[in-house]
């Protein structure tokens, strides 16, 4: 059974920043990624960008996923992107989901967020996106 599984599961850190306590979306994402064979590291609520950056490096994840529904995204996400860059971890994919108004999205993508999924996003699309990203990344790594 397990012999057939991929040797290198994608590792994804999931976190919530600041005082945002909406947990439904992040829980759904965590389970969807687990079902898709990924390792999800959950850091819990009330994280700061500094904490997420430190945890992402210790855990050596491939993807950092932030779920944000309480309007902190324009502050927190650019800061996190900058911290990851400064730590030499810009190769990690920064994903965001939750309540992120359309008009804020160009600025976030510009600041280093790789991809944004908002309300009603189908978890299958998220999984498909991550698998494609991972396949591309692994293909690029082969010497």
């Amino acid at each position: 059974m397990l012999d057939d599984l991929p040797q290198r599961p994608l590792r994804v850190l999931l976190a919530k920043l600041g005082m945002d306590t909406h947990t439904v979306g992040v829980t759904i994402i965590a389970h969807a990624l687990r079902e898709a064979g990924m390792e999800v590291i959950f850091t819990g609520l009330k994280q700061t960008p500094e904490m997420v950056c430190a945890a992402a490096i210790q855990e050596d994840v491939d993807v950092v996923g932030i779920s944000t529904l309480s309007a902190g995204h324009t502050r927190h996400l650019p800061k996190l992107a900058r911290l990851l860059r400064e730590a030499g971890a810009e190769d990690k994919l920064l994903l965001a989901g939750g309540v992120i108004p359309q008009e804020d999205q160009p600025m976030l993508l510009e600041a280093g967020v790789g991809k944004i999924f908002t309300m009603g996003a189908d978890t299958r699309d998220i999984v498909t996106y991550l698998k494609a990203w991972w396949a591309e990344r692994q293909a690029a790594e082969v010497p």
Partner: protein
Amino acid sequence: MMDVTEFGHAVLAGKVAAGARAIRWLDDGDSRGAAVLRSIFAATGRAHVVGITGPPGAGKSTLTDMLVAELRKRERRVGVIAIDPSSPFTGGAILGDRVRMARHTLDPNVFIRSIGTRGQAGGLSRSTHDAALVLDAMGYDTILIETVGVGQDEIDVVNLAHTTVIVGVPGLGDEVQAVKAGLMEAGEVFVVNKADREGFEATLRQFELMLHLREQSRPEDAWSAPLLRAVANRDEGGGAIVDAIEAHRTFLKASDGFERRSGRREREQVLTLLRAQLVAEIMRGDRAASILDDVTARRIDPYSAADALMSDWRQ
């Protein structure tokens, strides 16, 4: 990209990103992991490796968090490896132990790594031993290994750790029964957590009795395992537990027990690696595959198949 020797130096210098990447390679079975390990092995063997094990939900993560805080008061640099189960069906996992250790995230002298079991039974992952070596080489003084929630015989951690802390809790009914077979025999420090809960006194007495029986069957100069209480989510009891953990280290150091224990696990690792290499070697090629097909079709029994494969390989 740094080459592997540079990588080894970075790990030895305690660089977090390098250590984290080395652990990833070892966990993934990437050959670069083995290469890094070769270059750092000589610097390992210093850290005190401590296992934290017990039934699911006993408070292992919360207790680990408390022990990290206590060790930090004593200025130890602390590495944590927290293991959670991977799904046997998808291989995926939700690793949530570090949620309880969040207050140490920004401490530069604490490194926390979550690892999935990835199909390994026994309460650990295949990579746990190697991950502990990397943290050892990075200069962490104490390495705490939180196992998955264990039952009767998932006690691999006792072969890996110098000191194993067994965490029990009131309210699981027969949980002493559950740890009896392996853990009661193997642990060096016993903690009944959730001392604020109903049934605590009864659980404590059960543990006392088991430990008393255990003492009687051991030589007089053997380590006498202390039984302690804790309320981990209120940071109560950590001092005495760390005292006991460090007393056990001193006890091991008084003889050659410390080196003997690490030596035993390195030797075991050689055999594990050898087994994997041999099997891979023997199973290479079409003939091996067709013998396995014969077993599936019940044309040949497993014993004869193994004999046939061995004699093929010898030639």
